[in-house]
C-alpha cells in the first residue's frame, strides 16, 4: 500500500500533470517534422484524433483494467496463486470511470497520469507509420492499445501488479521500477511501432530493388527541434510527477529527478552531435533531435533513482547508440521508421530500464528490471503484433498506392498543409 499523499504533494503533482501534455505536443511536432510535407496536416490531425480516441477508450474500458479506482487501490484485482505467491495480473475497477469522484486523491492523479501516458503510447506507432498509415488505422491502433494492452502493462508495473510486487514476493529490490514510463509508455510504444512497421511495410520507393535505401529526410527541421524543446518541459513534469506517484519520492528528492532528466538529455544530444559530426562531417539536426529524445526516454526510467553522474552516463550511452541504431535499422534491417520510434523509444527505454537496475542501490534490482524487460519483449510484443495483424484485416493500415503518391493530406483530408507551396516531383518513386 502506498503512503498517503500530503496536500503539498497533491498540489505539486497536479500542477506537473497539467504541464505534461507538452511532451505529447513535442512528440506530435517531431513526428510531423520528420514526415513529408505532403502528409503534415494528416500527421498532426492524426495526433489529435489519436489522443482523443485513446482518452475515450481508456475512460470506457482501459481504466477498469488498470485498477486505480475505489476498491482496487493498493494492488487488488484479479490474482491467481502460483508457487505459494499471489500473481496479480489484471485490475478490477468499474467501467466508465465509476466511482472516480469518491476515489482517493492519489488514485485520481494516478489515473490522470495514465490518461496522458496512453495518449503518448498511441502517438509512437503513428509517427513510425508516417506517410502511409491511414487515419482510421491510427485511431484503431490507439483504441486497441488504450482498451487492453496499455492497461495490462500499467497494472503490472504501476498499480500493484505482479511486476510491481517482485520485491515483495521474490526479494528482487523494490520490484520492477519505472517512474516515468520508460517501459509502460516508451518501450510499449516503440514495440507497437515495430509491429505497425512490419505489418504496414515501408514507404514506396524506400527500399529499391538495387542499391541502398533511399533517403527520405524530414520536411521541417524547425518543427523537430522546437518539438524537442517542448518535450523537455513535458518530460520534466512527467518524470517528477511519476517519481511522486510511482516511486513515492519525498518532495526533497524531486529537484534531483528534474536535474537528472536534463542531464541525461543534455549528455545524449552532445554525444549524438559528436557522433554525427565525426561520421558525416557535419552534425545532423534530425539525428541530434532523436538523440535528445532518447536521452529523455532513458531518463524516464532512472531519473528518480540514480545520481546525477549516473544520469550523465545514461544519456551519453543513449546519445552514442541512437544514430548508430537508426542506421542499423534502416540500412541493415530494412525497417522504415520515419520518426525513429524504435531506436528512440524502444531502445532508449530499454537502456534506461537496464541502467536503473545497474545503478539502483537495492540488491536484486537488476534482475527485477530484466524480468520486466523479458515480459515486455517476450509476452507483450507478440501479443501486440497478433492484435495488430488481426486488426489489419478489418481496418487496413496502409493507404493505397495512389494515396501515397499524392500524399496523405490530399488523399485523406482533401487539402495540403502548405497549399501555397509548389509541390515538387518525387524522385524516390522508381
Amino acid at each position, binding site marked *: 500500500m502506498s503512503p498517503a499523499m500530503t496536500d503539498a504533494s497533491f498540489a505539486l503533482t497536479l500542477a506537473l500533470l497539467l504541464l505534461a501534455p507538452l511532451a505529447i505536443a513535442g512528440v506530435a511536432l517531431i513526428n510531423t517534422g520528420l514526415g513529408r510535407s505532403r502528409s503534415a496536416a494528416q500527421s498532426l490531425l492524426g495526433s489529435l484524433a489519436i489522443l482523443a480516441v485513446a482518452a475515450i477508450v481508456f475512460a470506457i474500458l482501459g481504466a477498469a483494467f488498470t485498477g486505480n479506482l475505489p476498491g482496487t487501490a493498493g494492488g487488488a484485482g484479479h490474482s491467481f496463486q502460483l508457487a505459494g505467491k499471489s500473481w496479480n495480473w489484471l485490475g478490477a475497477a468499474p467501467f466508465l470511470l465509476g466511482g472516480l469522484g469518491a476515489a482517493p486523491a492519489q488514485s485520481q492523479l494516478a489515473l490522470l497520469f495514465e490518461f496522458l501516458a496512453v495518449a503518448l503510447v498511441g502517438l509512437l506507432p503513428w509517427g513510425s507509420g508516417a506517410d502511409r498509415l491511414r487515419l482510421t488505422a491510427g485511431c484503431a491502433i490507439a483504441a486497441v492499445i488504450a482498451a487492453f494492452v496499455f492497461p495490462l502493462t500499467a497494472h503490472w508495473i504501476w498499480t500493484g501488479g505482479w511486476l510491481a510486487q517482485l520485491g515483495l514476493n521474490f526479494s528482487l529490490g523494490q520490484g520492477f521500477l519505472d517512474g516515468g514510463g520508460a517501459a509502460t509508455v516508451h518501450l510499449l510504444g516503440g514495440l507497437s511501432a515495430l509491429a505497425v512497421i512490419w505489418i504496414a511495410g515501408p514507404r514506396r520507393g524506400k527500399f529499391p530493388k538495387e542499391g541502398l535505401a533511399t533517403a527520405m529526410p524530414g520536411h521541417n527541421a524547425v518543427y523537430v527541434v522546437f518539438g524537442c524543446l517542448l518535450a523537455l518541459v513535458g518530460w520534466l513534469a512527467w518524470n517528477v510527477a511519476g517519481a511522486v506517484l510511482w516511486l513515492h519520492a519525498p518532495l526533497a528528492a524531486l529537484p534531483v529527478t528534474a536535474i537528472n532528466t536534463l542531464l541525461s538529455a543534455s549528455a545524449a544530444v552532445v554525444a549524438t552531435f559528436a557522433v554525427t559530426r565525426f561520421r558525416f562531417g557535419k552534425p545532423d539536426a534530425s539525428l541530434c533531435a532523436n538523440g535528445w529524445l532518447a536521452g529523455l526516454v532513458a531518463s524516464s526510467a532512472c531519473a528518480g533513482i540514480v545520481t546525477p553522474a549516473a544520469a550523465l552516463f545514461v544519456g551519453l550511452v543513449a546519445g552514442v547508440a541512437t544514430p548508430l541504431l537508426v542506421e542499423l535499422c534502416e540500412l541493415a534491417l530494412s525497417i522504415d521508421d520515419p520518426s525513429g520510434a524504435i531506436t528512440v523509444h524502444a531502445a532508449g527505454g530499454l537502456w534506461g530500464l537496464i541502467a536503473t537496475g545497474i545503478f539502483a542501490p537495492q540488491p536484486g534490482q537488476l534482475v527485477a528490471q*530484466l524480468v520486466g524487460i523479458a515480459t515486455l519483449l517476450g509476452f507483450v510484443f507478440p501479443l501486440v503484433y497478433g492484435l495488430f495483424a488481426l486488426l489489419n484485416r478489418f481496418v487496413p493500415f496502409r493507404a493505397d498506392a495512389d494515396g501515397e503518391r499524392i500524399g496523405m493530406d490530399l488523399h485523406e483530408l482533401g487539402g495540403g498543409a502548405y497549399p501555397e507551396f509548389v509541390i515538387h516531383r518525387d524522385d524516390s518513386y522508381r
Partner: protein
Amino acid sequence: MKYAGLLVMPAGFFLSIAALILFPAPAPRAAFVLCGLAVEGMGLAVAVRGHMAARGEHHA
C-alpha cells in the same frame, strides 16, 4: 519465419518466470533470467530475418 520468431519469444518470457519460481538463490536465478532474455533475442532475430526475407521475395 517471422511468425516462428514471434512464437519463440514467449518461450523466453516463460523461462524468465520459471527462474523466479524454481531458483531462490540469486545467481542461478539471474542466469536463468538472462537465458530467457537470450531466447527472446533469438526469436526477435529470427523475426527480423523473416521480415528481411519477405522484403526480398516482394522485390523478386
